[in-house]
């Protein structure tokens, strides 16, 4: 509203190019092709050249970022496409990490074998442990996913199994940024595709209205199990890789950071967009590293940034960006 009390509102118009209609791309010109592929190309090329651009110290951060991005992706997938609010990042990372470490140290498997095995086996174990709370609705899933890492750390501590408080040392070191970047891109685009397939629609329907899904003759527990398997596989992959970066798997693999940061990254990036949360992780994790110089003061800065986002851009960067990209905006008189 201006000083002369002229009423105005923002009008939004979709850009003229409607290229996507149910999996068929109807492209009319190079311009439309660019309009469609430019954002994807920026993402893919940007991620692939990232390890070449950053200094040595930050090279390792690229891997951390990707691991956190996988967790964030799994959080966003479960929360906004299946309706399960998961605080299981720590659970998944810990399970994946310990399995990879055990396979590597006790059975002598190379990292190229331990990571895939830990991904599948870890996802299997996580899913199995989470199945009992899947038929329940509400906050139970969040509580149980948060409880398991706490429980497992106590069990490992008390029984002194898997190296006890010292953790498992001497895990073969394996660091390959491209491996985790490509896995991240694979899961990102795979999930984007999945949620629009018929299977993905069923998952979204479970979130929207589980009673109607049951009335359709579909077992909601079965489909929740599938979703949890996919999500925990992502987390376990990250955990297994993390164990090989550190050369160690220990109690801090069950750290609550892995559960909390994905939520913050999802808030910043834009919930329900899948790309947004990845973007959020790419902002928050480096920020975390950068603020390390400030010591514990960084928690305050961190909280302030989050607060600012929740107040001023609660929709998240990606939702905002998508709107700007896909729509014209202009002010019109009412």
């Amino acid at each position: 509203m201006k000083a002369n009390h002229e009423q105005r509102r923002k009008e939004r118009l979709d850009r003229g190019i409607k290229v996507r209609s149910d999996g068929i791309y109807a492209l009319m010109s190079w311009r439309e092709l660019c309009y469609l592929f430019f954002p994807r190309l920026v993402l893919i090329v940007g991620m692939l050249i990232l390890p070449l651009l950053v200094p040595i110290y930050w090279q390792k951060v690229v891997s951390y970022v990707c691991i956190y991005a996988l967790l964030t992706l799994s959080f966003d997938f479960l929360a906004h496409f299946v309706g399960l609010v998961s605080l299981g990042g720590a659970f998944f990372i810990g399970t994946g990490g310990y399995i990879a470490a055990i396979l590597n140290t006790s059975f002598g498997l190379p990292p190229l074998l331990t990571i895939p095995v830990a991904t599948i086996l870890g996802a299997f174990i996580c899913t199995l442990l989470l199945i009992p709370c899947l038929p329940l609705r509400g906050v139970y899933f969040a509580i149980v996913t948060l409880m398991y890492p706490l429980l497992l750390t106590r069990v490992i501590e008390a029984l002194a199994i898997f190296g006890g408080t010292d953790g498992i040392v001497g895990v073969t070191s394996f660091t390959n940024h491209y491996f985790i970047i490509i896995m991240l891109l694979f899961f990102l685009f795979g999930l984007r595709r999945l949620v629009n397939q018929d299977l993905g629609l069923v998952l979204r329907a479970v979130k929207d209205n589980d009673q109607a899904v049951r009335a359709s003759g579909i077992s909601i527990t079965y489909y929740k199990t599938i979703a949890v398997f996919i999500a925990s596989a992502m987390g376990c992959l990250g955990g297994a890789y993390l164990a090989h970066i550190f050369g160690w798997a220990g109690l801090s693999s069950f750290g609550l950071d892995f559960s909390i940061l994905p939520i913050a990254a999802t808030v910043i990036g834009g919930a329900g967009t899948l790309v947004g949360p990845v973007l959020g992780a790419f902002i928050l994790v480096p920020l975390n590293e950068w603020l390390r110089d400030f010591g514990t003061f960084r928690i305050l800065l961190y909280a302030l940034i989050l607060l600012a986002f929740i107040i001023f851009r609660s929709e998240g960067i990606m939702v905002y960006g998508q709107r700007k990209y896909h729509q014209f905006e202009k002010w019109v008189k009412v």
Partner: protein
Amino acid sequence: MSAQPILQVQNMTKAFGGILALSRVSFDLHQGEILGIIGPNGSGKTTLVNCITGFINLTAGKVFFRGKNITGKAAHKIADMGITRTFQIMRPYYSLPAYKNLVIPLFSPRAKRTGGWRGGGKLGDRNTVSIDILEEMGFERESYVPYKMASTLPTGYLKRLELARCLSLKPEIILCDEVFSGLSMSEIASMVPLIERLQMDGITLIMIEHRLRELFRVANRVMVMNFGEKLIEGTPEEVMADEKVKEAYFGSEKVEEVTGYA
């Protein structure tokens, strides 16, 4: 009508704490008929549907489908056998377009087993089949209505969407929980032929209704409930003539005025 009832309910009882929502309700449902269930508010009609379809567990009693005991089975297993229901408060997937709403039931094991609607799958993918079913339920194919978000559809279309969801499972029984309520007269007038079509297609229906005039037009038999108990069962005329029904359901009002039935 075949000798064996398609659905048998025996002494169905459901207690919510100390409140008896259903008390020893028994009835038979025969192949191909439309059974109307009427009764005042809170007489246990919706609880009956919930109990038959497995959405809530019954306290006592048995339900038989084609002679097979289905008491206490999970809701999705019962739906998988072909006993489907609509919800009184419509439950579409609001974030999906109308036709995508049907992709979910078409993804169910039953729809896959029966090959989708009229052989679906071979007829096209689930989107195509769902548009076909929506057209049968009165969504104009050429219009934009099937493509609209379910959250923007008016009540009449949501009720049709509920029926379409049942229909995409190729059901044997549909339990309609107040499909006419909340609709305008013209919307009801266009719904009645749809119900008649379903019966002609060989689907057995249980209809819970408050709109008696329309119900009595389509129903073969009517069951009256009050305070969780079955009062009487019979043809619409028999039921209307019964004194107990007049008392319980209509109070002091004259039946003729409400229903137009003499």
